[in-house]
């Protein structure tokens, strides 16, 4: 293995322009792949944000003021299902405050309403909007609950859209990784074509197929790893420079911009994938040549 690495690095050093071209091509392929991946990750965050917006609102009967322990019991019961993203109790006083806030420009409406006239309620959002219906069923069976509401048709429509967007992003990212693989295959293939005579000579002096193949496999891995590392650096720079621009209109979505830890995970993943794609590209290209 160390001999293969030595040979691969020596070949790369001694043909610097070919190496540079090969690195440039693989870097660009991985850059687009990483950008598509980050776009898919951001799209996932945005979709998650909108998916958790719909809520089930459960209104208590107007004359019922639930005890804090009853509310806590209901919270525990709902959270125990594992379906709940957030749970909020809105007391009669809270409801009045909300009402006043909503109608602050209409004093006539404010004068006529007191806290007693408004029902206490519970607002529950789900981790997965498909579970809102189940949560609504649980709430309907609770004593003291008068009415349970959630926009079922809107949720179904939202789910359809998010599914399409998510699938298209995954397909785009996977396609780009496949394109990167084909590009590495082409790069290694052209390197092998340039080294036809060397390979023929090695075969004639008694080199085994693995002795001939390994340096190309290692070369493919190096292109994949170095290319993905440079591509990652480029994409991180793009993120750092574009963050202030995007923050202006999508700042309300929490955790949208990638953290350092997330980017390091992306780096690790990209380099592993780069090495894998490079090695596979090298194996396939050299095997095809040796067979021919």
């Amino acid at each position, binding site marked *: 293995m160390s001999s293969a690495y030595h040979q691969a690095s020596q070949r790369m050093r001694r043909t610097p322009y070919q190496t540079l071209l090969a690195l440039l091509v693989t870097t660009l392929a991985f850059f687009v792949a990483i950008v598509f991946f980050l776009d898919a990750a951001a799209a996932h965050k945005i979709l998650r944000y909108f998916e958790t917006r719909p809520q089930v609102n459960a209104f208590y009967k107007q004359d019922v003021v639930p005890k804090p322990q009853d509310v806590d019991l209901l919270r525990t019961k709902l959270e125990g299902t594992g379906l709940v993203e957030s749970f909020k109790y809105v007391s009669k006083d809270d409801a009045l405050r909300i009402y006043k806030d909503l109608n602050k420009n209409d004093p006539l409406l404010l004068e006529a309403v007191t806290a007693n006239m408004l029902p206490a309620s519970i607002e529950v959002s789900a981790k997965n909007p498909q579970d809102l219906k189940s949560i609504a069923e649980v709430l309907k069976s609770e004593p003291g609950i008068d009415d349970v509401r959630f926009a079922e048709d809107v949720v179904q429509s939202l789910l359809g859209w998010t599914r399409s967007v998510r699938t298209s992003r995954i397909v785009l990212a996977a396609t780009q990784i496949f394109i990167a693989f084909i590009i590495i295959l082409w790069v290694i293939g052209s390197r092998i074509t340039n080294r036809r005579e060397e390979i023929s000579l090695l075969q004639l002096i008694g080199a*085994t197929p693995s002795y001939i193949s390994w340096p190309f496999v290692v070369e493919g891995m190096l292109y994949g790893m170095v290319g993905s590392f440079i591509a990652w650096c480029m994409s991180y720079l793009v993120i750092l420079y574009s963050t202030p621009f995007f923050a202006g209109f999508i700042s309300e979505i929490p955790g949208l911009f990638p953290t350092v830890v997330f980017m390091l995970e992306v780096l690790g993943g990209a380099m592993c994938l780069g090495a894998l794609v490079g090695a596979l590209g090298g194996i396939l290209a050299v095997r095809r040549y040796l067979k021919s």
Partner: protein
Amino acid sequence: MISYRGVSKKFGTIVALDDVSFEVDRGEFVFLTGPSGSGKTTVLKLVLRELRPDKGVLAVDGHDLAKISTSQLPIYRRALGVVFQDFKLLPERNVAENVALPLQVRGASQADIAKAVKQALEIVGLGERAGLFPAQLSGGELQRAAIARAIVGRPKVILADEPTGNLDPKTAKSIVKILLDIHKELKTTVVMATHNADIVNSLSLRVISLEGGKVIKDSPRGKYE
């Protein structure tokens, strides 16, 4: 050492070798002569198992080449040293690295490689040129480097395919002298295909003459036909 028994080889409708039979003993120096297309290179390529015969039996050192499997082929080829007319030195490797190749493919240690390469380069008189690249060498030096590469693994047989074809007469003689010295000192079997009548006629060694894929003459102290 090398045994051709009724070997024939065709490329499509072209007959490259037709029922060729001869034996080369261990430690012998043999010239293969004949015009272009007479089958000299095919004889060497069959020994190297670059090609397979269509008919007949070809054995080297007692081993029937037809029975050598793909996985055994690299091991078999390590017992042979090959010298080509166009040298086939790798341009990105310096002389020492080119000469080291046969030992590297065998997985020899760096110390053994360094020692053997130094010896081989001294035998061909290129000890001072070890660090130069092929582009920096003359034609004669390139061929000497190729011979050093062929002998570095101490092969039983050296196959030389027109090693003087690209060289001036004086350099050509010096290359053949090196091959003769190796043959004498290391007791290596040498089979050399050549067009060079002067060299063949000056040495009075065994000559196998080919024409149209057939052996037309096999003389123990032959001349160029």
